[in-house]
Each structure stands twice: as structure tokens, then as C-alpha cells.
């Protein structure tokens, strides 16, 4: 197990290295000039050239890469062109909203989707099953921003129960923090509820046909115990995988929701950085996203051991 962990951790190094090189090169090859962005609309070409030199963009690409990579190795992601702030500080400021939103969303999704999926499998072919499948299609099909506007219109503008936008930090109190995140997490969770419920249903359905389920029922176990202890436990591996991928996708994929609800998270930071050609910030955030992907995949792989004793590392 420790050996596996060590090997996997070691394998993240080339992954991050490749990501770093690719991101760096792609940014330099795409059109757009950070200096022109920073200088403003009325700046002259001469002023833009001076700003470009000040940012070090007049150096050759290998030189720029060497400087940046040298800093990254020491844990310094550089300074944002746009905000004149350390990229690590910016990420630190934006991490909490995004992680909060992602965790609340995935918690809500798991709490709703897993029971629904189990029930749908249990009542395979019934109205409940068909209803759930219908909801899944709807959940996949409705874009997040459409759902967000509908929810805002209903719960914030018509009923006045919830706020339209904004984010409160946990330090300001758990109540205000949760209050602000209800609508965004509800918006985001719908698609994950649909996804996890479908996978749960399919996985549980498969296990329900197994001999050990028949044996459990024959032993006279209550149906709930059969479903939870035997069916769901054995169907857990694909469900955990989907949840893990869901968390990873959420960390980097909350851009639209963050925009609509004005949440100052990593998604918004990434969009702003891309629009401003803020190379250090884009590079830093993408490296972080890559690391999160790798780390979550590793955690998911490790969790298999607990759900399926046959798996050994």
C-alpha cells in the first residue's frame, strides 16, 4: 500500500511537469498582449512596449520559462501581471469560496442522489424509476445558468427567501456562509444528482442480480439491510469514482455558477486571468487544478480498498 502511494505520488511529478510546459507554451502562442491590456485604451504603443519590458515579456520564451519554472520549483508561482499580487495569495483568497461551493454541492448531491439511485434500482421499471430517469435527462440537459436564473427568480426575487448574489466567508459565521451558498450549490448539484443517481441505479441494479443478494434475502434479512449492506456496499466502487471525478470537475468547473452568483472563486479568477492575459495567474491556477485532479484520483483509488476487499495495492 505504502509502495503504491509512493509510486503514485512520484507519478504526479511528470504529469505536473508536462502540464507546466504545455500551459506555458500555449499561453505564449495564443494571441493577445498582457502589456496592452494593462496599459489601458488610451495608451500609446511606446508606453505598451515599456510595460512589456517591465513584465519581462521582451525576453525570449526559453528565458521566460526558465525564470518562471525556477520560481515554481521553490513554491513561488510568481506575481500576477494584472493584480500585482502574488499568485499564491490570489489563489488563497479564492480557494475558500470554490472549495465551499464544491463541497456543499457534492454533499447535497450525494445525500440526494445515492438514496434515489438505490430506490430506483430497487423499484426497477416502476414510476419512481422512470421519474428518476426523466429527472436525470432534465438535469443533464438544463444549462446551469438557466437553472440559476430560474432559482434566483423564484427564491430570491419572488419569495425573497434567499440572496441573489454574493459570498460570505466562514469567518463571518457559518449561518451567513451557508445562507449565501444555498442557491449556488442547489444550482450546481442538479447535474451531479442526475449523474450520481444514474450511476448508482445502474451499479446497484447489477448487484441486485447477484447470488449473494438472493442468499441474503433467503436468510430473511430485512430489505433495507439487503440494499444497504449487500447491494450498495458492493456497488460502491463506480459510485465513488463518479463522486471523485465530480469533486475534481467542480473545483475547476464552477465558472458559470460563480459568475451568475458573483462568487469570487477560482473559476472567476481563471476567467479574469484569461481575459487579461495574466500569464502567471493562469499558469498557477492550472497547475493547482492539475494537482487537485491527480490528488483526488489518488484518493479515489485508495478508497477502493475500503469498499472492495479484493482490491490490494
Amino acid at each position, binding site marked *: 500500500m505504502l509502495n503504491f502511494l509512493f509510486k503514485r505520488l512520484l507519478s504526479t511529478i511528470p504529469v505536473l511537469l508536462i502540464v507546466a510546459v504545455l500551459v506555458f507554451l500555449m499561453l505564449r502562442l495564443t*494571441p*493577445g*498582449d498582457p502589456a*496592452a*491590456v*494593462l*496599459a*489601458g*485604451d*488610451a*495608451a*500609446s*504603443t511606446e*508606453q*505598451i512596449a*515599456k*510595460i512589456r519590458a*517591465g513584465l519581462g515579456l521582451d525576453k525570449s520564451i526559453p528565458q521566460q520559462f526558465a525564470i518562471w519554472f525556477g520560481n515554481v520549483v521553490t513554491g513561488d508561482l510568481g506575481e*500576477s501581471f*494584472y*493584480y*500585482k*499580487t502574488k499568485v499564491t495569495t*490570489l489563489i488563497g*483568497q*479564492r480557494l475558500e469560496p470554490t472549495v465551499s461551493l464544491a463541497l456543499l454541492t457534492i454533499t447535497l448531491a450525494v445525500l440526494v442522489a445515492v438514496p434515489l439511485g438505490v430506490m430506483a434500482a430497487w423499484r426497477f421499471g416502476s414510476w419512481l424509476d422512470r421519474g428518476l430517469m426523466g429527472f436525470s435527462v432534465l438535469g443533464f440537459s438544463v444549462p446551469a445558468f438557466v437553472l440559476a*436564473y430560474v432559482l*434566483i*427568480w423564484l427564491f*430570491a*426575487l419572488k419569495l*425573497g427567501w434567499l*440572496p*441573489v*448574489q*454574493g*459570498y460570505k466567508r466562514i469567518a*463571518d*459565521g457559518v*449561518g*451567513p456562509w451557508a*445562507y449565501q451558498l444555498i442557491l449556488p450549490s442547489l444550482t450546481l448539484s442538479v447535474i451531479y444528482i442526475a449523474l450520481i443517481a444514474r450511476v448508482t441505479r445502474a451499479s446497484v441494479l447489477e448487484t441486485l442480480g447477484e447470488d449473494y443478494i438472493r442468499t441474503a434475502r433467503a436468510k430473511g434479512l430485512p430489505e433495507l439491510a439487503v440494499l444497504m449492506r449487500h447491494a450498495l456496499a458492493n456497488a460502491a466502487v463506480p459510485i465513488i469514482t463518479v463522486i471523485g471525478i465530480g469533486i475534481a470537475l467542480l473545483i475547476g468547473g464552477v465558472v458559470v455558477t460563480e*459568475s*451568475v*452568483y*458573483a*462568487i*469570487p472563486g477560482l473559476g*472567476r*479568477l481563471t476567467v*479574469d486571468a484569461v*481575459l*487579461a*492575459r495574466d500569464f502567471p495567474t493562469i499558469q498557477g491556477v492550472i497547475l493547482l487544478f492539475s494537482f487537485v485532479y491527480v490528488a483526488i484520483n489518488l484518493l479515489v483509488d485508495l478508497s477502493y480498498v475500503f469498499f472492495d476487499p479484493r482490491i490490494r495495492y
Partner: protein
Amino acid sequence: MKLHRRSLVSLALLAGTTLFHTGAMAQANVLRIVPHSNLAILDPIWTTAYMSRNHGYMIYDTLFGTDENAKIKPQMVESWTESADHRLWTFKLRKGLEFHDGKPVTSEDVVASLQRWGKRDAMGSALMQFVQRMDTPAPDTFRIFLGEACGFVLEALGKPSSNVPFIMPKRVAETDAFKQIEEHIGSGPYVFKKDEFKPGDKAVYTKFAKYVPRSEPPSGSTGGKRVYVDRVEWNLALRDAQAQVNALQKGEVDIIEQLSFDHYESAKTDANIQMPKTDKFGLQYMGRFNHLMKPFDNVKVRQAALAAFAQEPFLRAQVGVKELYRPCASMFVCNTPFGSTAGSDIQAKSNMKKAQDLLKASGYDGTPIIIMKPTDLASIQKLPDVGAQLLRQAGFKVDLQAMDWQTLVGRRAKKDGWHMFFTAWQAFDVWNPISNPITDTRGEKSVWFGWATDEKMVGLRNEFMRATEEPVKKKLGEAIHARAFEIATHAPLGEYDAPMAARKNITGFFVTNGNMYWNLKKN
């Protein structure tokens, strides 16, 4: 004690309300504003970005300002004199001016600030060409010695838009003009809360209790800058147009600086929302030719394009709301001191037949016109489509290239690879022949993209800079205007208002011709 279910529910609701709505009372005297863009750069001299300028107006003060009628009025200056030969200017500062760190504003701070501004701003550097030296005979007095007379000293010192000559402490103003300042201390009506600044999230300003406002009523960037709120918060995260309107309707924000045209009608019908008119002159759309690229290096081809660009189609497509736009064939914006229509017939009385005839006569060889279209900037993204269509009707071949605004900004800085782009200016950026960067026709030395070349125009601008009498300046302004149309430097495409929306409990709006947040009360 027996509790009924209804009582329990009431208790739970009360607890929930208390838990979730902490700080509601604390919001009472906080003005919550949604600015038109994100604030990233805190040095209004280093960049010309409007957001940095607006940030500057919050925390810095200026020597002079421009009132709502475009007249220059004193602000930090109490009195001034001008020698008979117009070469020596002596200024005395008002009493009681103080920086946010408690130190008095002195003439040395002023001189250092002007020197830094003069290295970055187009009008500032034009002024510095005339300045022999500046000195500080007393802590409240500074003098400007000119090598030769020039007629825009006060216009430059009181210019309302980027780069505004904001006054900073000497130690800050001594920062290299090409490096951003690290300290953000001014003597303006608000104090910037650096510790609460979260880029992309919010910027916070608190009332500067020691600020001594002028006695005159506020007007433009002049007059008494009285602050009636304790705190102003700029919501930098709220950038989705629909979400902004939702937040205003719900009362979560107080002011939307720039409401999208699409939401204008619906916001107007909301009983809790007002549309204060704070900008008398509005903004101007324009299309810029690249004078270095064939075929736009040929004046006749540019004239054909100018003739094709009737303003109404652009305004109707981009703004859409009739009461918010007006055609105006003045490059210096209608109803401003130099607003003129001299020489504008080629566009004002244009028609497609004329454009087609001009193009045929120009010897146009069919080179496709590359128009850069920004797809992510709702305020101007329809202009290139209209422009492309009108050019096609006139007989041009057009290559309309879609890109994001920042790609466009990067590409336009290069002297080849594009023929046209479209943009918008706030009126006061283009209303003066010197501050208007588009009429700079020094070819590749021009301060702005497009690089027009015309010696006659250069001569007229030089004369204008040296003219000290108003009637002469007016006459030269008209001559510059007519010449700009004659050589088709660019195409003005009409004027429009960017509507502001606010909750009705906000009072005290005045004509700022920009984005200034003093004199406002939250009732």
C-alpha cells in the same frame, strides 16, 4: 411548559433570521456600487484604464476640475495668477489640505505629482514640452515657468479623464512613472482600505473625516466633495448583467454604474429603481482606420469608408434604445466647447451611392478589409457587424475576424495585420483637440493606434497648443476638425448615454460626466 408546534416553528424562524441576517443594520450607511468593470490597477497614472481613474477620484484630489459644462474650475487651488506674457503661472493651494496619513499637502507634493503625470499622460507630456521648470516658493505656492506661451495649462491641470493629474504625496509621486505605486494615499474625500481590497471581489473606501470640501455645489469633478456615507463598497465580483439587475431589484446593491442596454426598459419600469442622468455628454462610438495598411493608406479609400458610415445604423444596432443615442457628426462631441460639425458633410450627408462612387474613383484594388470584432464586449460588439455590412454595400471586400477584446487590444498595437477596429470613448477623452489622441497625425510617432500622417494637421495642433485667446482656439479647433474629416482620420459613429441605475433611496446625484461618488445620501 407546553410549546405548540406553531410556536416552535416561529422560534426556529426567528433563530434562523437572526443567524442569517447578522450585519443587516451595519449595512445602513454603506453605499454598495457595481462598477462598470473590474478594478485591478491601483495607479491611475500608470494606466489609462477608466476603473483606475475612478479609483483615483475616490482617494485623490486634483488642482483643478472640469464642471458639468466642461468649464475648468479650481479644486485644490485657491487662487492663481498668469503673467501678461502667459509664461509664468503662480498657484496658491487651499488651506487645510491634508493627506490621509495626516501630513499636509504641500507644493512639493504637487510638483512631484505633476512631473510623474507629465511622463505618462498625452496632454501632460504636451504641456511638459512647454514647461521650463516648476518651483515651490512656499509650502502652499508653486509656479510653472513656460519656455513659450501655451493655451492649455488649465485644461491640462483640470482634465477630467485618464490620465488625471491626481496629487499624491511626494514620496509616492517620486516612483518611476513606468512602475506602479505601492502606497495609495491621497487627500481626496475617501480613504482606500488596502487591507480590505480583494482583487476581483471588492474594493472598500471609507469617509475621510478631515477632508475639507469646497463651498460650491458639486459639478463634474469640481465643487464640494461632501461625503454623507461612512463607507463605499465596490462589488467587483458582480459582473453578469442579469445578476446585477437582480441584485439591484432585491436591494442587495444600491447603484449599477453602467446598466446594460438590454435591461434598460425593464429596470425603468421598476418602482424601486431610478435612472439618474449624471452624464451630460455621454460617450462616442468610433471606427479607427489603420493608416499604415493598404488600402487605408489611401485617403480616397478612407473617405469612401467614411461616406458609407451613416451613424444611425450603428447606433440602432448597438444601443437600440432610441432615447439613449443621438447621431452627431462632430469628432469632438456635440455641445462641448470644441464641438463642431465643420467639414463633416462627407459623413453627415453621406449615402451609399456617394460611397460607391468615391471607392470607384479611389483605385481600390479589392484588398479585403480586416475588421477586428470583439465578441466579449457587449457595449461595442455589434459595431463591426454593421461596419462590415456597410463597407460591403459600398463595394469593399471585408474579412470580419472575431476575437476577444484582449486579443484585439494586442493586435491593434501592431502596425500590420488589421485595417479597422471599433471602440467607444467617454466624451471628455475626445472633446479637446489636444487630449483627443486620434487627431494626433504624427505617423508612427502618434500616441494612438492607427498612425495617421498629416503635416497640415500637426501644424494646426501646434498652433492650437500655443493659442491663448479663446476665439483663436475655437477657430483652430474648427480647422482641426475639418481637416480630420478631410483626411478621414477615423469615423465618429454617434453618441450615446450609458445609463446608470440606482435604488430610489439614494439621493444627491449630480452631473459628474464620469463616475464620482460624493454628495450621495442613502435614506
